């Protein structure tokens, strides 16, 4: 293997190598790190960010960005929790619509899909920059969450709903199963479908994609809608895990998901990256958080370290692109 191809391979597997190095270092530094319980703990913790990051990967691959995922997560979770606990009163008809658990889940996901679709419409129909459109949605969704909940947490959602966030199947936490299924689905979607190929084409060169006859607005609309739906799934998992929908849930989650996507090697300018890279990015952030916690590092320093890791990942990505 010549020097150039070695550096190319190094650039390609940089996220994996970074994760492997971290695992080895933390295993040596803390005997509590590489245990089955802690591994499950890390996987459960990253599953929420993973759901968000899958959607964020789609959006970033298309050349956009979605800053609203944290607020969409909060509103979706709050709507599902509110409908499950209190139902929907229709005083004019003297009726109360009582939602079953599947009904509340469908309603929560529908809210995410609608908000994501609205983001897509703002970007494609009204030609707003994605940053601005989704920043507006961030505020709108957070405000709607406050209005829906009255500023108070919605709690006591029942054991059945709670199992979605705290239950296990075959010894593995339910959120891990759900996020794993979504990972597989979106790997297939991005790698094995026409939509996936078009997505890379749109993100790589939007003008060329348009001139090639691709329905760019429709693809982008689809991407933002899927992003909203995935944020809603994350919202349901958070709500189920805490048995509570809090109005300030998901604050700052958009930054964690963007960080995971970037650390995973997806280019912020679009057209380059992978779902598997995003999984690695989520794992790196999760392992980093967990490791720093086990090593008793102050939470303030944890923020600083995370920031440096993101900077290092972007720098490595730039260097990697030049090498490739």
């Amino acid at each position, binding site marked *: 293997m010549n020097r150039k191809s070695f550096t190319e391979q190094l650039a390609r597997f940089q996220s994996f190598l970074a994760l492997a190095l971290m695992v080895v270092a933390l295993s040596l530094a803390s005997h509590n790190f590489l245990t089955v319980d802690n591994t499950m703990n890390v996987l459960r913790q990253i599953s929420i960010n993973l759901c968000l990051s899958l959607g964020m990967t789609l959006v970033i691959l298309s050349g956009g960005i979605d800053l609203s995922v944290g607020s969409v997560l909060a509103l979706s979770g709050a709507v599902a929790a509110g409908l499950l606990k209190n139902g929907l009163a229709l005083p004019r008809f003297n009726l*109360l619509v009582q939602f079953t658990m599947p009904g509340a889940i469908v309603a929560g996901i529908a809210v995410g899909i609608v908000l994501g679709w609205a983001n897509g419409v703002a970007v494609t129909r009204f030609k707003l920059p994605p940053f601005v459109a989704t920043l507006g949605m961030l505020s709108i969704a957070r405000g709607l969450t406050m209005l829906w909940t009255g500023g108070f947490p919605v709690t006591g959602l029942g054991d059945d709903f709670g199992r979605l966030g705290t239950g296990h199947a075959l010894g593995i936490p339910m959120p891990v199963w759900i996020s794993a299924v979504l990972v597989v689905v979106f790997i297939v979607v991005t790698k094995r479908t026409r939509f996936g190929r078009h997505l890379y084409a749109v993100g790589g060169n939007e003008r060329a994609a348009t001139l090639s006859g691709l329905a760019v607005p429709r693809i982008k609309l689809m991407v933002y809608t899927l992003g909203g739906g995935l944020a809603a799934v994350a919202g349901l998992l958070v709500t189920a895990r805490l048995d509570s929908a809090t109005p300030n849930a998901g604050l700052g989650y958009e930054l964690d998901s963007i960080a995971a996507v970037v650390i995973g090697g997806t280019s912020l300018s679009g057209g380059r990256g992978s779902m598997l890279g995003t999984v690695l990015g989520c794992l790196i952030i999760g392992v980093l958080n967990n490791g720093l916690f086990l090593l008793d590092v102050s939470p303030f320093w944890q923020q600083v370290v995370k920031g440096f890791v993101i900077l290092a990942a972007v720098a490595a990505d730039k260097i990697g692109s030049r090498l490739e």
Partner: protein
Amino acid sequence: MKRAVLAVIALGLLAGIFRFVPLFHFVPLKQEQGRQAAAEFNPTNFAAAFWNDRLLKSLDRAADAGTVLAALSADSPKARTQFGRTLGLSSATLFFLRGTGRVVSVTKKGVSLALKNGDDTADILLPTGLLFGNTVRDGTGLLDASTFPNSQNFNDLSAELNRIVETTLLPQLREKAKVGAKISFAGCAEIAEDDADVKPLPVIPVAVKLESP
């Protein structure tokens, strides 16, 4: 045409699924509101019932304040384990105490009591200002958080118990406690993990009996 057929099939499948797994059902609003109102947690009623039916009937469960204070100064960790209790991850220890003391001072902070005869050192402070926190709720050990539907109800109950103390016990302490008077009390105290010198120990009273000097 093909797409329309697929859409119809998909809708039919969904309708079939939702037939067996319903997403929602309708109930008369007024009937449901009546049922919910009946089942709703009322912290005022619950606190009043708890106060009269359980707390005041359990005062004999409280440990002797003099014994606990002596044990705390001799071996604090052992005394905390023997007479106190901790909740969840909290490192503070809660005590349910009772005793009789002589008023040695009355200040804005509260009424200070000496437990030993002939000694004017304040052992206990019965605070007479506004109450905050969950010491009364958690100190007796009679209430279990897990039996409440949610933490909001449990917190409302705490506020309501504090209100009972503020409105029924503290006014008479403020008005009638004079230096030299004898007071029999029962109440709850909370000591932080790093509290080395606990005297005078603040005890939020749940029962007081005053005797003139």
